[in-house]
């Protein structure tokens, strides 16, 4: 149906998945792509399950419906597995990236993907964010992990976009912490 990539983010309100989708969109735009980044809003309350989406394409994107069969699924909070259907609609060869201290083999089982073609990557994004930012912000390491697991966005594009777009909003300490979180997310994501 057209040459584009679709991404779905799962998290809980306040974990930054809406911002992560925004930052990913901006980084892809910097690389000359056409992008969409949009949240799925419901009744908003802290801790409630939240989804956000991206579309990325070499051509202008005309679709304005929700993403229903994402090739890439990022899960910022593994306690959502079993509560929210995180594999819903994802094709057989989808890529899953999960914030967890567990191995990708264990996570593959939990996701019900044992023996399936899907690729599963894990990283302890919560710990990385505590180390680099001093608070729970699993979204930034997940972006780094996405760059490792896929070819459509590079770590450099993510880091450069963040430095350029957010230097006015955040202190240099926050910028450096986020860039470090992306780098560590990139190097610590493991799986296949």
């Amino acid at each position, binding site marked *: *149906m057209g040459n584009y990539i679709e991404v779905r983010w799962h998290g809980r309100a306040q974990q930054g998945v809406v911002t992560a989708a*925004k930052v990913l969109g901006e980084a892809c*735009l910097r690389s000359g792509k056409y992008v*969409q*980044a*949009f949240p799925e809003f419901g009744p908003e309350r802290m801790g409630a399950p939240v989804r956000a989406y991206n579309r990325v394409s070499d051509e202008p994107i*005309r679709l304005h419906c929700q993403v229903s069969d994402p090739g890439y699924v990022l899960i910022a909070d593994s306690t959502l597995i079993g509560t929210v259907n995180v594999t819903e609609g994802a094709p057989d060869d989808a890529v899953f990236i999960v914030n967890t201290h567990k191995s990708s083999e264990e996570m593959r089982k939990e996701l019900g993907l044992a023996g399936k073609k899907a690729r599963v990557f894990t990283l302890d994004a919560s710990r990385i964010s505590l180390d680099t930012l001093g608070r729970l912000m699993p979204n930034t390491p997940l972006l780094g992990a996405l760059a490792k697991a896929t070819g459509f966005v590079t770590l450099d594009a993510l880091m450069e976009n963040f430095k350029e*777009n957010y230097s006015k909003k955040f202190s240099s300490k926050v910028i450096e912490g986020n860039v470090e979180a992306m780098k560590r997310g990139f190097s610590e994501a493991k799986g296949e």
Partner: protein
Amino acid sequence: MAITMTKGQAGLTGNSAIAYAMKQINPDVSPAYPITPSTGIVEEFSSYVADGAVETELITVESEHSAMSACIGASAAGARVMTATSAQGLALMWEMLYVASGMRLPIVLTDVNRALSAPINIHCDHSDTMGARDAGWIQLYSETVQEAYDNLIQAVRIAENKNVLLPAMVCLDGFITSHAIENITLIDDAAVKEFVGEYRPVHSLLDTDNPVTMGAMTLQDSYIEFKRQQSEAMARARDVVIEVGREFGKKFGRAYGLFETYRLDDAEAAIVILNSAAGTTKVAVDELRKQGRKVGLLRPRLFRPFPFAEIAEALKNVKALAVLDRADSMSGFGGPVFNEVRSALYELEKRPRVISRIYGLGGRDYKVKDALAVFDDVLKIAATGKVDTLQKYITL
């Protein structure tokens, strides 16, 4: 908010793009009462005001009725006035919308389309602006973030044109467009300033050398003449929309007309649909064209005044079409867009068959498969000339 551009492109939500256009237009007065999903417009614009990036007097009021009342007062005084709202907000403005248009005040309003209560819902449909379609406001609809931005800049010129002098609303889809980041090409501040020009009101209550009366009582002796003039001004807006859209295209490379057609030239079956869902429908058109099916799309941009003759001309060779409405007129004959399109086609010697489909109320997702299912019906009608179901709800 700092906006960074890459090769002239930025990634902005519809709300940010509208707020940015308002910053570039720099209206004299902006009375506002924020409401979901248009809140972001007022929020970001108020930052521009606080930062001194604009000279606008932002008036925070206690309701949308007051917001529109303040718009009317400021506009009658001779100011360039802009505001934004959604759903219940526009509904609460209702009484004052008619005062604004009757007094011929070129106020520009952005409506981020949202369903009306009850049941309460914050998501997209067009019930709000369709309810205001007879309020004497020019209505421009927008498919994308880019078009919403471009429409707002053009709306100022259209509304303030001396042959028009009517308020205008620019409509974009709640959440789908207002909260989605898309690529957008922004125009330089100076170029926007030049394009909209300096506002010189034809009449101003503050011009004491040339006193005027506005909003006076008129009875059987003259009310109907006022309304006739207003109606004629609205009809003239059609030409101004064409003129301004053409000039915008020449200056900035994106030309706009009364409506957009997509692969319609040799189409036998077509869908007529507003705003963001037209994009999704175009993807369905491409799918079917690959299979050799002759399908196309017409997306009205200007809904008030309704360009009935031009739309009838554009659709005259189609055998059958579906008009999709994201609003219901509740036991009227189909949805509001259907009413207009079908009525416009009545003047043709040989008329296409037309069906009505109501979709996507309260933000219900409208997918490519939904458009394909509608095309399936329309292609059958085109082949047989027989209509099974004239009106129905889809995306249920």
